[in-house]
């Protein structure tokens, strides 16, 4: 690793796994160094992505136009009904508002919006300058809620007040205010909420169906295909199942404290983790062995068709190497397992926002020689990819063109996935996408991996 220039001050956020050597913990949970070309976003971004899929609420961005413009329908979180979340609302703050305050504008905007769209609730996102000019958005929200009779929830997501994770927390805080306000009569004892599943490409629908086949009632999905009324009833579920742990663990803990609802962490990626996420829920209801039987039935049915269909991909991909750089670390665990199941090894694993425990577990899972990074940048990523001779990069929007320039395959495991990657069918889609990209005929025409044709 010596030949790689690492940003000074970042050495502690990178290491290469070596067996039989005691290695210090990776440094993480830190803010990025000034001047780095970080792939990370801000607090606002964190709140926006978590709440975005709530489809029958309005999402008003209080700030200059950019924050609303850049987050306008960029996440493929699908709704089965209303699609208010796919519009872009902004107070478009101007210089005069910055000087004299934006409260009046916010108030009028809210009234106009609620009149126009008759939403079930409104989320108001604070952006950087709202935090500076001192608008009392709590007061405005209270006033509008009183006048209109719908919940109007401030989201304290000023961009500079922490990292994306703090934005997740601010979003959960707003959700927490809704939870507990709906009727929980008629909710089955055998019921769950799915937390941190955003219904990208319809994934929540797939997962929901598995649980329903097991006889489990899904009270709400937070926040995929989200509805305000479902959020309000979430406290009636018996168990919380947390899929994207980075964004929703805080909410699960709060709900446990306030409503006594226990939670488990699951992942819907890959055969192993997908199956486990069904069994773990079934285990929670030992008085109903039929639920476990049904879970086994679902798994065996799905695997029976899935497993043979993966062999073609496995045959072609065995021995290929992957690099993973995604938002949350929890996802990397599943990806490592999923890639192994199609014969691929992981040579680089990293995330934007993993915590100490995540990285410790990552270290445990990885093969010797795997590079592990926190909050990486394009220089590091491309150098490690070349050095470790990866054939595939799994990442998000900013990483995609880097992979293609280097002449290796790419899979978007972020907002821009176009097909479901969760569930058993998702594993098939994932393998297909990886196969298509890694084995693409285009690579025979392209200079690859730093070399020439």
């Amino acid at each position: 690793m010596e030949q790689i220039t690492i940003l000074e001050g970042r050495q502690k956020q990178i290491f290469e796994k070596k067996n039989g050597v005691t290695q210090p913990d990776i440094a993480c949970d830190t803010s990025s160094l000034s001047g780095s070309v970080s792939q990370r976003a801000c607090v606002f971004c964190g709140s926006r992505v978590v709440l975005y899929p709530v489809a029958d609420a309005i999402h008003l961005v209080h700030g200059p136009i950019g924050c609303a413009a850049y987050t306008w329908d960029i996440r493929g979180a699908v709704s089965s009904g209303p699609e208010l979340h796919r519009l872009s609302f902004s107070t478009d703050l101007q210089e005069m508002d910055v000087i004299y305050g934006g409260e009046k504008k916010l108030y009028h905007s809210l009234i106009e919006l609620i009149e126009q769209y008759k939403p079930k609730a409104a989320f108001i996102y604070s952006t950087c300058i709202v935090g500076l000019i001192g608008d009392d958005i709590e007061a405005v929200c209270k006033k509008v809620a009183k006048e209109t009779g719908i919940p109007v929830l401030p989201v304290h997501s000023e961009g500079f007040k922490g990292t994306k994770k703090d934005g997740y927390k601010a979003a959960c805080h707003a959700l927490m205010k809704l939870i507990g306000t709906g009727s929980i009569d008629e909710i089955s004892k055998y019921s769950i909420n799915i937390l941190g599943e955003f219904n990208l490409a319809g994934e929540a629908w797939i997962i929901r169906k598995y649980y329903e086949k097991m006889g489990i009632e899904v009270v709400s999905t937070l926040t995929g295909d989200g509805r305000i009324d479902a959020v309000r009833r979430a406290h009636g579920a018996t168990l919380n199942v947390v899929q994207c742990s980075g964004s929703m663990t805080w909410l699960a803990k709060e709900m446990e404290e306030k409503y006594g609802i226990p939670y488990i962490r699951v992942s819907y990626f890959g055969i192993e983790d997908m199956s486990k996420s069904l069994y773990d829920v079934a285990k929670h209801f030992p008085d109903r062995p039929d639920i476990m039987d049904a879970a086994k039935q679902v798994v065996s049915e799905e695997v029976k068709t899935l497993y043979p269909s993966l062999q073609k991909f496995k045959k072609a991909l065995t021995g290929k190497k992957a690099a993973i750089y995604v938002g949350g670390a929890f996802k990397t665990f599943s990806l490592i397992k999923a890639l192994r199941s199609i014969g691929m090894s992981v040579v680089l694993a990293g995330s934007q926002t993993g915590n100490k425990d995540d990285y410790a577990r990552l270290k445990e899972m990885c093969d010797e020689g795997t590079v592990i990074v926190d909050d990486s940048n394009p220089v590091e990523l491309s150098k490690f990819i070349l050095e470790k001779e990866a054939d595939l990069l799994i990442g998000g929007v900013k990483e995609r063109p880097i992979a293609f320039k280097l002449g290796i395959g790419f899979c978007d495991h972020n907002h821009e996935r176009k097909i479901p990657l969760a569930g058993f069918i998702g594993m098939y889609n994932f393998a297909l996408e990886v196969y298509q990209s890694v084995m693409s005929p285009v690579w025979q025409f392209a200079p690859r991996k730093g070399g020439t044709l």
Partner: protein
Amino acid sequence: MLLRHTSKEVKEREGLTINPAKTCQPIGAMYAALGIHGCLPHSHGSQGCCSYHRSTLTRHYKEPVMAATSSFTEGASVFGGQANLLAAIETIFSVYEPDIIAVHSTCLSETIGDDLQQITRKAKDDGKIPEGKYVIFASTPSFIGSHITGYANMVTGIATQFAVSTGVKKHQYNIIAGWMEPSDMREIKRLSKELGVKIVLFPDTSDVLDAPQTGKHVFYPKGGTTVEELKSAGDSLASLALGSISAEPAAIALEKSCKVPFETLDIPIGLSATDRFIMALSKVAGVKVPDEITAERGRLVDVMADMEQYLYGKRVALFGDPDQLLPLTEFLLDLNMKPVHIVSGTPGQRFEKQMRKLLDARSPETNFRNGLQADMFLLHQWMKNEPVDLLIGNTYGKYMARDEDVPFIRFGFPILDRIGHSYFPNVGYSGSLRLVEKLLNALMDRQDRDALEEKFELVM
């Protein structure tokens, strides 16, 4: 229907913007800075700004977009961002090794009162800027103007902070690019070469945001205007600014600082604007228009005549950015089409007056609005009240096109769902010819789709 909520009745709104037809200044500054060779744009603000701009530009170009950020924290917002920026400059030069850092501000750093001029001077005084390297800056508060303003501010920063007047004139001309695509910049260079005029084009994002696949990830691709060229811009005989909103401010600044006279033209989109561009360039440089360019013009006029019957009277709604909308509207009128609704989120009386002048002379009943609340929601309402045959605008127009079931041509920024804009220009005669082809394809595909069987024509 995604936009089923859009009501037909137009009401004045007091504060609210719905579905904006603009975005904020910093992304424009970032785009302009990418048009300098060896330059790393730097966003002086929260991490999210930089990340959003890079993501949007990446989605638009399908290219890696490199930029750094000051990564503001709560502390920086209380005590000022000077320490962050100084640290950033040091880090960037030692790790990413650019020739130039182009710093732009954000709403956050502007509101807390960071003075970029003072901070960059301090960086220089403290020896944080290595010999032969540069830090330039532009103030780009997000609560004023739009992405176009930010672009203009950075281009002005580039012009004033690099160009020097040595007192000895060079036989060359500056062409200051208004907001256009790398493909357009490439075409401007080709046309100038055909004319035999030596130009300094800035900014120039060709070979930066349309880079070839090479097996390597290059932090600083081969394109971009070089420092030497930019310095020499102060000795050029004259400047042509393409776009009164996005390019002229830089030309004015250059006239002030280096006494380079300038002329402002429209971005050469369409026949008339290209005519003016070619004539101005040939006149200012004293060269004759070569036959090849005359032939290119002839081919465009030929197609315009051949196909006029399919374009005549077609009603068009368009939205986008001022310097593109003006020549585009003129071109639609030249094609005998009818611009019915025009919207731009970019505020400014200059643009308003120019567009009004054009419309008053040739299409006085056109609905036109720019600035606050001139958003896609308003445009959609207008389209419901007075339907159109065609919609032209950036990718976000696809919702309206789907909802109203009208053909749609992607034009402007951002285009997130199609390719082509990076590679095929809209400027010049051949670019305009491509535009005509697009117009015709959109309208004629629709005609074919909707035609009754007995009216389904083979020869069109």
